C-alpha cells in the first residue's frame, strides 16, 4: 500500500522532518503557486525541480521511489499534453506535463516529511475548520482499516466469481450493491464502537491534544528562505 510507505517515511528524522508543519505547508504552497504562475514552458519547471530534488535529498528520502510515486499524475497529464499537442501547442503540452509532475513531487515531499497528525494540526492553526480537521483525522485513521475490509470482500467475492461467461450483469450489479451495503453497515457499527470507546474514556465533545508545537526561529528562517527561493525560482523561470 502506497500510503503506508509514505507514512513510514514521514516518521523519519531529518532537517526537513523536524521543521514545523506550518512552515513546510507555507513553503510548499509558495512553491506550487510560483510554479503555477511561471510561463507555460517546460523549462519553467527546471528551477523548481532542482529545489524539490534538493529537498528530497535534504530529507534523506529515497529519491527513486519518490520519483516513481509522483508519477501517478503522469497518465492524466499525458492525455492532456497529447490534446495540446494535437491542438498545435506541443510546448504548452510539455509544460503541462513537467509542471504537474513537479507539483505532485512537491506535495509528496511535504507529506513524506510531515507526519499526518502534525500536518493536520498545522492546517488547523492556519485556519482550516476544526470539524473538517477532526474528520480528516478519523478518515485517515480508518482508511486503512476499512479499505482492508473492502479488499477482503473483493477477495471473497472473486473466489466465487467464476469466469463471467454466463454471469448475469444484473446479478453482479446486485452483488456489488450488497457488498457496498455490508461495507457501510460495518463502517457504521465501527463508528458506533468508536463513539463508545471515546465516551468510555471521558470524551464529552472537546478534543484536547498533546501537541503543542512551537514555531521556533529556525522555522521562521526556513519559511522565509523557502518563500524567497520560490520567488527566485519563479523569476529564473521567467527569464527567456
Amino acid at each position, binding site marked *: 500500500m*502506497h500510503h503506508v510507505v*509514505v507514512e513510514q517515511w514521514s516518521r523519519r528524522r531529518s532537517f526537513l522532518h523536524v521543521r514545523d508543519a506550518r512552515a513546510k505547508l507555507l513553503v*510548499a*504552497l509558495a512553491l*506550487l503557486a510560483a*510554479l*503555477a*504562475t511561471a510561463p507555460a514552458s517546460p523549462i519553467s519547471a527546471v528551477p523548481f525541480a532542482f529545489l524539490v530534488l534538493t529537498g528530497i535529498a535534504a530529507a534523506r528520502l529515497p529519491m527513486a521511489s519518490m520519483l516513481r510515486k*509522483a508519477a*501517478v499524475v503522469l497518465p*492524466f497529464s499525458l492525455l*492532456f499534453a497529447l*490534446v*495540446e499537442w*494535437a*491542438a498545435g*501547442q506541443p510546448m504548452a503540452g510539455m509544460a*503541462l506535463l513537467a*509542471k*504537474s509532475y513537479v*507539483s505532485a513531487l512537491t*506535495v*509528496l515531499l511535504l*507529506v513524506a516529511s510531515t507526519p499526518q497528525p502534525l*500536518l493536520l494540526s498545522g492546517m488547523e492553526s492556519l485556519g482550516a475548520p*476544526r*470539524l*473538517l480537521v477532526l*474528520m*480528516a483525522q*478519523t*478518515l*485517515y*485513521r*480508518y*482508511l486503512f482499516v*476499512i*479499505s482492508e475490509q*473492502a*479488499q477482503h470482500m473483493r477477495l471473497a467475492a472473486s473466489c466465487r466469481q467464476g469466469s463471467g461467461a454466463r*454471469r448475469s450483469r444484473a446479478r*453482479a*450489479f446486485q452483488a*456489488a*450493491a450488497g457488498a*457496498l*451495503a455490508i*461495507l*457501510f*453497515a460495518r*463502517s*457504521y457499527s465501527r*463508528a458506533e464502537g*468508536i*463513539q463508545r470507546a*471515546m*465516551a468510555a474514556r471521558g470524551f*464529552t*465533545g472537546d478534543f484536547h491534544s498533546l501537541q503543542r508545537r512551537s514555531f521556533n526561529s529556525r522555522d521562521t528562517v526556513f519559511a522565509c528562505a523557502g518563500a524567497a527561493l520560490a520567488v527566485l525560482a519563479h523569476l529564473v523561470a*521567467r527569464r527567456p
Partner: protein
Amino acid sequence: MHIPDNFLSTRVWLTLDGVAAPAVAWVARRAHKGLDEARIPLLGVLGAFVFAAQMVNFPVGVGTSAHLVGGALLTAILGPAPAALVMTAIIATQAFVFQDGGVLALGANVFNMALAGVLAAWVPLRLFSGRRRVSLFLAGFLSVAMSAGLALAELTISGIRMPPRLLALSAGLFAIGAIVEGMITLAAVRAIERLNPRWIGPAPANGSRAWAAIAFAAVLVVVVGLFAASGAPDGVMQIGQWADLHARPVWAAPMADYSLPAGPLWLRRPAAAMLGLGLVGGSAVAASYFLLRRRSS
C-alpha cells in the same frame, strides 16, 4: 474528475479557492450546529467508507466496471452540509496523501464535487422525496453531471484547448458516468435500507415545492448549460464575453494591484468567463438553497 495543479489558469484556481474556502467554513459551521458531538467519528468513518467503497467494482457494459463516487449517497444518508464536509475531507485527503488532484486546485475540486455536486444531489432528494427511486437516481446522476460539467468548463476556460470532438466525447463519457452513479446510488441505498432502514434518514418531505422546483431548475440549467457548452466551446467563449463585461468591475477592485503576472491576454477573458459562470450558477443555486432552508425551518 480530480483536476491536478497547473491545469487551471491562475484566475480560475484563485477564484475557486476564494469561493470554496469561505463556503467550506460556512458548511462546517452549519454541519457542526446540527451535529451531536458524538457523531464526529461517524463522519470520518463514512469518509473512509466512501474511499474504500471505490474498491467495489460495479459491472457496466462489456468488460468495464465503475465505482461509487459517493456525493449523492452521503447526501442521502447525512444531509447536505455534513455530506459536503465529508466530501471535502475526502478530496483533501486525495490531494495531499495520494497526489490525486492538485493542492492549488483543491478549491476547484472541492467546489465541483463537494459543494456543487452535493447541492445538485440534494435538490432532487428534496424535491421528489415522495418518489424514492427517482430522487435517488437523479441525485446520483446530477451530482456527477454537475461536478464533471464544471470540471470540463473550468479546464476549457483555463485555455486547455480540446478539439470539439474530444470535448463532446468526454462530455458523453461523463454523461454515462452520471447515469452509472445514479444507478449505483439507487442500488446501494436500497441495499443499505434492507439491512437497517434507520441508517438512511427519511428524506425531508416538507418545504415549498415551488422553491424546490426553482432550485432544481437552477441545477438543471447549470448542468445542461455546461454540457451544451462543452459540445460547443465557442458558446463558452460567448458566455465569457458577456460575463467579462459584467465581471470586470468585480475583478477590478481586488485585482487592481494583483502583482502576479496577469498572463497572456487570451487568458483574461476566459478567466472572467469562469467567474461569470460561477457567479451565475453559484448564486442561483445558493439563493434557492437559502430560500429552501428558510421555508423548511
